[in-house]
């Protein structure tokens, strides 16, 4: 059994900590495992913040998780590079459908987005239920980012 298969089994069993340890014992991670590592970090925040849903609620399949992350990233990038509003709004639809937490969106915002303040403002408008959380994120960006 490969190390990746072992990690997959841990995930299916809900043993996220074991999966994380196995992941960090690897010398090289491919793209899917790099994404899994990020999602586990988000999972810890979701648990600590008592989020209604966690990133592993929808799926524990590594490939599906990677696709989920890339989809979210691309949908957020539409805000990053100001695509038409209709295209931007697909993010809202996708997040509702897949119960995406504000913590995962914030992680992508901070890690993968270029115009972070602009996108954060858009997230505040798009997700009024998370306005307080994104508001705090925006405050942080105001101190660190130029427009």
């Amino acid at each position, binding site marked *: 059994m490969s190390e990746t298969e072992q990690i997959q089994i841990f995930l299916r069993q809900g043993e996220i900590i074991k999966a994380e340890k196995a992941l960090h014992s690897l010398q090289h991670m491919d793209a899917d495992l790099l994404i899994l590592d990020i999602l586990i970090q988000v999972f810890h925040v979701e648990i600590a913040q008592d989020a209604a849903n966690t990133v592993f609620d929808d799926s524990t399949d590594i490939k599906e998780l990677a696709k989920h992350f890339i989809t979210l990233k691309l949908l957020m990038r539409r805000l990053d590079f100001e695509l038409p509003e209709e295209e931007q709004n697909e993010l809202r639809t996708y997040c509702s459908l897949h119960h995406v937490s504000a913590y995962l969106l914030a992680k992508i915002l901070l*890690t993968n987005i270029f115009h972070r303040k602009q996108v954060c403002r858009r997230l505040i408008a798009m997700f009024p239920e998370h306005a307080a959380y994104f508001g705090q994120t925006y405050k942080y960006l105001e101190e660190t980012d130029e427009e």
Partner: protein
Amino acid sequence: MRNDHKICFIMCANDAFLAKECLLYISQLEVPEGFSVEQKVIYGAQSMASGYNKAMKQSDAKYKVYLHQDVLLIHRAFLLDMTALFCANPQIGMFGVVGNKSLAKDGCPWSDGMHRRIGEIYSDLIFKKEYSVFSKISGSYEHAVVLDGLLMATQYDLPWREDLFQGWDFYDCSQSLEFWKAGYQVVVPSMKTPWCLHDNDILHMEHYEKWRKVFERTYGNDYKNWEAPKKKVIFQIFDPKKTLLDFPYPPVYKEEGADYLCFTGQKEVHSRVWKICKIDRLDRAAVSLALADYEEQKELQTDQIQIAPLFAQKSGEGVVTVPALDQLPDVKFDQRQIKPTASHTGAYCYKKNPKYTKGKYNGRQLLLTIGVPVSNQIETIDRCLSHIAPLLNQLDAELVVVDTGSTDGTVEVCRSYGARIVTFAWCDNMSAARNEALYHARGAWFLSIDDDEWFENVDDILGFFQSGTYKKCDTATYIQRNYQMMSGSIFHDNHTLRMARITPELHFEGRIHDSLIVPAKAKNCQLFSVAHHYGFANDDQKNRGRNISEIYLCCFTICMSIRKSCGIIFNWQTN
């Protein structure tokens, strides 16, 4: 048949989701006017080169953009910049957004560091994002020995070497060198901000070494001996005292591969050919600094026009110097009177005609206004007006005479025909004088005739109005018979558009070859009344130096070659 106004995006894909997102960004790009865009996504290609060849053969587009499925084109003006770069530089065969100034000995673009890379890109590496500026491009582009295959745009089709590269590596380096070997240049253009975002995940390097060896074996001598062509610039320091224009003379001959830089301290200098470099303190030192990257330089003076290659010529050849207007023989110009008729954007400057609402002819008081610009034509004016008298007498018509400074009794003759006289300062612009008559017209239709013309008869024009035919038309032409000799032995006829329904936008354009500007869909009626015109008879001494069209003859016969003259006349005529 190749379609010169078509752009094709070509992508080899194995992930429909990524490809769809890539196409979404392509759909947001501004498309140059008159161009069409198509997309070809190749799934299941054996190799990048074979997939690209397949799509290349399927498309008749002149311009092709080969890109990876994980590239997002975020620069909305990409297609405008691409076509502008290619059109201005036919020697450029291909460009990319990232390339190499040189390669390591083993052929790898990055094996000994990234210092050889040029261009810029946004990258997303999953765990972090990067805004990579490898090296800012100086000038409008820099030559690259090879391009990164994330995006490669071409204006000529060369087959991709699928015979050599059956994988996913080094097809880009190979194609770059194929372009160089075919005599085309490969460049990375200047970008204010990155044109693309590349979603780099982890590189798949399993077969990299295999294809690197093929590349080194095939192209080793080419890339090791490659030298970038020397960067050339033609520049000028714009001196407004040496020109009446607010732009540098465009070259009649444009040097291939050279940048055209015009240095100025003024704000309002524009050009489509010259890149305008505004320098607050315009001095030689500042200009030298700006030209530091250019290995070959040629300077043009503000009053010079390039008519031939400069870099292959001895100093002074390849240019003509435009004489000041007052230096031209036989022509007495007051330069201060000459005003530009077009704005820097090319829009013609004229004042719109007033609207009337209370008259019986679609709001206008009269049916016809005959406009005649006059200037000291006492010998011909009576003949001109007596022949249009039937129109004035038998129609609801008026005569508007625009006098540009007659002192020989011409105006008095016009008054005897009931003319309304409008005084207008001559500005060496026939259209401006005609437009002045149009502006003062009260008729629903306008007919323009010169003071040295006369109608043989006006029956056809009369019939046009009296029969009501004019109601179904927007414009009408009559025959102008232009005599080349005063004897009348040599002439040519042409149907000239000098009659039109008056709208606020109706106007004439052009200093010399003035023409009535009417909507493209205007319905015209061809009339056969003949107007005789001796204004261009070249054996009439009175015609010499009388108006600006004389410049053409003077330049043609005395000053320069036809080519030189056309350059000058073109600028006077259009600006």
